[in-house]
């Protein structure tokens, strides 16, 4: 499961080379502007923006589809609930089932926002290696302790994924039925064991880090001087975000 979830290898496209802090700010501006879009007329603009950003990243569309699959289940649920139960204006009636305007509109805008946000977020995370991203977040003010925790957790979840899967396999080979609610106890034991082992491992990790100078001095974060191109990208994103955010104000 985790193997499939591993982030796509950052590609050598222009978006992968975009200075990380500017990319982070630019794309996050877009994402939050998307979250605030309520006007139906803006939905095509938003979707088009997300589409263009994704095209620029050169990531395969298959990849985006795979990313949308899991959370898409939630959308399906909303697709049933909202158009059928929300609102008073009935636009179509199929026997006892009525399709309502307000619900349909709010479903469409939720779906559009959802898809656009995930598309741009996917670009951000698939074109930036996690360590680079965290370093950039640190230099933008994320507390160092939080950044360190993020990197360590990221580093060790892969190991724990393997440990956990081996432990479950071993239990299954000794007859445990992990597909039932009764397996809660076995799973709790496995997790308890992993907690204890991780606790000890953390002591060894700390020793190893200390021996290599962890905490001896604050490591410098590598910085590339932003090029004109990097700044242009940021300006474009911020401008677009501003348009999306201010549109209701400007129109009124």
């Amino acid at each position: 499961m985790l193997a499939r979830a591993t982030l796509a290898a950052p590609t050598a496209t222009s978006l992968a080379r975009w200075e990380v802090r500017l990319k982070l700010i630019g794309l996050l501006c877009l994402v939050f502007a998307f979250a605030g879009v309520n006007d139906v007329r803006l939905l095509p603009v938003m979707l088009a923006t997300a589409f263009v950003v994704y095209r620029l990243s050169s990531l395969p569309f298959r990849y985006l589809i795979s990313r949308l699959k899991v959370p898409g289940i939630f959308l399906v649920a909303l697709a049933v609930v909202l158009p059928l139960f929300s609102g008073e204006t009935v636009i179509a009636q199929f026997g006892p089932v009525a399709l309502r305007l307000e619900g349909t509109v709010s479903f469409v805008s939720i779906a559009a926002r959802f898809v656009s946000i995930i598309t741009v977020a996917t670009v951000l995370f698939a074109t930036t290696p996690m360590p680079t991203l965290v370093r950039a977040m640190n230099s933008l003010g994320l507390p160092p302790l939080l950044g360190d925790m993020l990197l360590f957790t990221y580093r060790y979840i892969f190991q724990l994924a393997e440990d956990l899967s081996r432990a479950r396999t071993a239990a299954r080979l000794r007859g445990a039925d992990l597909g039932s609610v009764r397996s809660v106890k076995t799973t709790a034991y496995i997790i308890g064991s992993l907690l204890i082992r991780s606790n000890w491992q953390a002591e060894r990790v700390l020793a190893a880090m200390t021996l290599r100078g962890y905490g001896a001095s604050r490591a410098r974060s590598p910085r590339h001087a932003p090029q004109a191109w990097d700044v242009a990208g940021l300006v474009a994103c911020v401008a677009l975000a501003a348009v999306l955010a201010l549109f209701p104000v400007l129109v009124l």
Partner: protein
Amino acid sequence: MHVPDGIVPVSVAAGGFAAAGGVTWLSLRKIERAHTVPRNGVPKASLLTAVFFMASLIHFPVPPTSVHLVLSGLMGVVLGWYAFPAILVGLFLQAVMFQHGGLTTLGVNACIIGIPALLAHRVFTLRTRFGARRRAAGTAALGFVAAFVAVALGAAAASLLIVTTVPAHLDAVVERTAVTALLFAHVPLGVIEGMFTAIVVLFLLRVQPGLLEERF
């Protein structure tokens, strides 16, 4: 229990980030006060977070569907003040790696899961009041309660948020029904979480009680 992207208004999302930022700041301050070298707790907190992260991917069948653990209660119990940063980290990784939860709703989700976790920790510390003879039973019971309460609070907050902010045109009765339905849908999860947490804390109490005591 995770609020996905695109659902809540941007004001709620922003409010979530502000609140999460505040709680994070408070947590980091508490951690710094408690330790001469706060960074030395990082490997431990991170490795345990990794365990919780993996554990939360395990599904248990509850016909007709299946549930996965949230572990907010257990994280509070084991991690203390590190729980909130840990949950923030876990949610971020879930959003980035699985699109589970959301990026714009990260702050909201961190509050929904993280604040109950801190509460669970407070609840669990009550176990010091049990005498040595009832230590095991008391620990297990409080583990159950802490986890159940954490899940219930989180579910209530998430349900309220989704139902009240999403469809602007639902009438009050439908809204109330929806919240109640969502809450009841979380009862099996709460029970499983409670049992799971009780068994884990008992396990730790027997094998390495230090993990329940120390606030590294």
